[in-house]
């Protein structure tokens, strides 16, 4: 019964979102403002329906209603309650409902923040959002309905949630990522609304900015969490694989970052209007394409849920409707957008331009590499290829370098034209000092240096001094310093975040140690300066799996810790899974994966040392923090 209620609520939301989405057409025909006024309330009703529908699905998971196909395939009575809850978005159908719910949260937030504003503009924005909601509900209902029953024979037991997903990080990774993905619909809707009502000005730019910042922030957190999850859960110690699905989230992230930078210029100087609008369309396109890549199963990926061409065609139709449609609107409605100010090469405007050119070209090149296997297959009669990680590594390095250089000087460029260049001197001296100190420290800790590390430290020092040190140095009084730091907190935090991230990436890629070994009980292996000693094996059982675990002692000068990598056997699915054991410290992680028994009392192990890996995620958190603080300030200012 509960399931049917959820199903009906979803159908109700489909109908109402359709009416809300196309209500402006009625307004156009009748000139009756009533058709604008109803959009807001209808939007909230859609949100309420989706919320309740989502709740019924969660409830059905909690009570193990295996008459529902989706639940039978993705849950199990043995599953701990918390994971039953999170299993709601453990596969395709439920995660789509989550996607829609996230979008509804955004549209309703938008409504409540803008109730008192320009009626037409708000109504148009909400109608675009409701068209998107409508399209995704239709997709869910017609191709991937989570409420579908298996009748008449109801299974007694469910198939279980993939053991890899039975993990805390997984439970919050999809919601964060989806908040980011769907959040990009808001700037998109604002752009369309501005195009239609011919209000592309700094007010529009100011309104679009917090939304693009928020989406960026959630994407950052979602991606970082996914990377962290892959690191400790997949058991290989990798933190980024250039997997199509990772790229599918990274590309919208890059474009959203480009977008909120471009919106700064549009707001302050009244230029780059066309570009900002185009970016908001591109960002939403990347967001749908991301969904498409994950859902359609056309690309090889660890994340692939479904292999169903019908879904692919449906999403392609949604994609064409929104993206081609908005591009047509754009080309007909944008042509009279005068740019006012002029600028020369050494100006903030040009700095932002370079930032955007770099970010967008990088995003498109990554997209190209991700889609290239498809193109190749189509052109070469079904020959299949994959594009290796080095492709992306070659690509990203020069772009990261150029963006870092910009980040270090961007703050001190003036609008229109920069007269004073003495900041270059200071930043150079400061960053050089930091560079020398850090290089010595790294050499002291690791006993070696490499080109990769040098480069990473150089980029770190440059960004660090350009954003923090020089601002500190310039202010003569504590009061002044405080006000600068508070005023620029969002930006400084995000920029320093990228600096820490780059430092972490540079060091972990050049200094990681890794070795597959066979150890007998009591035997030890020396990796770098660290001894790994295999003490003993244990066997036991937990709630829904049995496991074997090895006791490994880590020693350097003294004992560092004892850790226990596990090999689990999940009872309901009979699936074997390794659970790596990690000892994190500030400077490096010790990482042990248990292999299998390879002889009498001998086991294989993968031993790894991962220096500075934590700094990557620490950097990502700083970036997200920066975007959240900035967007909060912009919302308050609206």
């Amino acid at each position, binding site marked *: 019964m509960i399931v049917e209620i959820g199903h009906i609520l979803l159908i109700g939301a489909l109908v109402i979102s359709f009416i809300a989405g196309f209500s402006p057409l009625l307004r156009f025909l009748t000139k009756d403002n009533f058709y604008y006024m109803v959009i807001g309330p209808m939007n909230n009703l859609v949100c309420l329906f989706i919320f309740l529908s989502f709740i019924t699905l969660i409830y059905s998971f909690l009570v193990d209603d295996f008459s529902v196909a989706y639940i039978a395939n993705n849950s199990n009575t043995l599953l701990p309650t918390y994971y039953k809850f999170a299993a709601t978005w453990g596969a395709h159908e439920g995660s789509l409902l989550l996607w829609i719910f996230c979008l509804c949260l955004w549209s309703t937030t938008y409504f409540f923040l803008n109730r008192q504003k320009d009626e037409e503009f708000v109504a148009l924005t909400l109608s675009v959002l409701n068209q998107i909601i409508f399209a995704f509900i239709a997709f869910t209902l017609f191709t991937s309905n989570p409420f579908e029953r298996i009748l008449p024979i109801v299974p007694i037991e469910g198939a279980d949630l993939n053991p890899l997903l039975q993990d805390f990080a997984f439970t919050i990774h999809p919601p964060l990522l989806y908040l980011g993905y769907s959040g990009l619909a808001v700037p998109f809707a604002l752009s369309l609304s501005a195009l239609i009502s011919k209000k592309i000005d700094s007010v529009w730019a100011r309104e679009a900015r917090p939304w693009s910042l928020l989406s960026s922030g959630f994407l950052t957190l979602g991606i970082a969490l996914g990377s962290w999850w892959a690191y400790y859960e997949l058991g290989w110690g990798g933190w980024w694989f250039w997997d199509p699905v990772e790229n599918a989230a990274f590309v919208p992230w890059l474009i959203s970052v480009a977008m909120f930078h471009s919106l700064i210029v549009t707001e302050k100087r009244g230029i780059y209007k066309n570009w900002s609008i185009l970016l908001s369309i591109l960002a939403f396109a990347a967001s749908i394409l991301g969904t498409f890549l994950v859902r359609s199963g056309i690309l090889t990926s660890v994340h692939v849920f479904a292999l169903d061409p019908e879904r692919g065609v449906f999403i392609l139709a949604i994609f064409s409707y929104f993206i081609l449609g908005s591009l047509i609107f754009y080309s007909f409605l944008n042509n009279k957008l005068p740019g006012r100010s002029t600028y*020369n090469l050494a100006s903030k405007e*040009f700095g932002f331009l370079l930032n955007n050119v770099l970010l967008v070209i990088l995003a498109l090149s990554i997209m190209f590499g991700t889609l290239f296997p498809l193109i190749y297959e189509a052109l070469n009669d079904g020959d299949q290829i994959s594009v290796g990680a080095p492709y992306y590594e*070659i*690509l990203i390095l020069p772009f990261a370098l150029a963006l870092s250089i910009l980040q270090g000087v961007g703050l001190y460029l003036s609008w229109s034209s920069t007269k004073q260049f003495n900041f270059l001197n200071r930043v150079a001296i400061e960053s050089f000092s930091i560079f020398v100190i850090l290089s010595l420290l790294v050499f002291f800790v690791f006993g070696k240096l490499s080109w990769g590390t040098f480069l990473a430290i150089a980029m770190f020092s440059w960004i660090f001094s350009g954003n923090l040190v020089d601002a500190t140095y310039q202010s003569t009084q504590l009061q002044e310093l405080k006000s600068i730091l508070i005023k620029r907190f969002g930006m400084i935090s995000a920029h320093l975040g990228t600096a820490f991230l780059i430092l972490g990436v540079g060091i972990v890629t050049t200094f990681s140690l890794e070795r597959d070994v066979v150890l007998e009980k009591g035997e030890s292996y020396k990796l770098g300066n660290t001894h790994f000693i295999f003490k003993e094996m244990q066997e036991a059982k937990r709630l829904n799996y049995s496991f074997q675990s090895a006791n490994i002692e880590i020693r350097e000068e003294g004992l560092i810790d004892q850790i226990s990598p596990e090999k689990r056997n999940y009872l309901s699915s009979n699936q074997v899974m390794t659970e790596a054991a990690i000892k994190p410290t500030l400077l490096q992680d010790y990482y042990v*994966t248990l*292999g299998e028994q390879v002889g009498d009392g001998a086991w294989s192990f*993968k031993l790894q040392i991962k220096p500075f890996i934590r700094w990557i995620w620490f950097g990502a958190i700083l970036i997200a923090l920066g975007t959240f603080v900035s967007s909060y300030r912009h919302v308050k200012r609206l």
Partner: protein
Amino acid sequence: MHPLRKQRLYVVLSILFGTATAAFLVFKGLSENINLFYSPSDLKEEKISVDTQIRVGGMVKKDSINKENNSLRISFVITDFEEDLLITYEGILPDLFSEEAGIVAKGKINEGGIFIANEVLAKHDENYMPPEVAKTLKDKK
């Protein structure tokens, strides 16, 4: 030059420069990092140089897994139901590697026609076959 025109020139130049750099890197990256996929039957038909890194895939044959005691060396045979291919690998295998599982291996083929893998992938889902393998098996069956 008129400032506005000069400004436009900067914009066009920087976009051109960025695009050219990216195009060069994309071209270079793709020419060096594409790994072609072969099924065991494809390998019988085509001669592949011993230096080329390729990917092969198929189903692990029953009773073909051969492990050495106290070592990480392993050999096994994959099949697409027409031809077989012997693969050797040294290291820890993924959890889902087992008899009759679909796998993909990356590596090079030696003069003796044995595939020396440096990476073996088995997907993390019991019902799931790597798409390439699924396609190969479907074609041959």
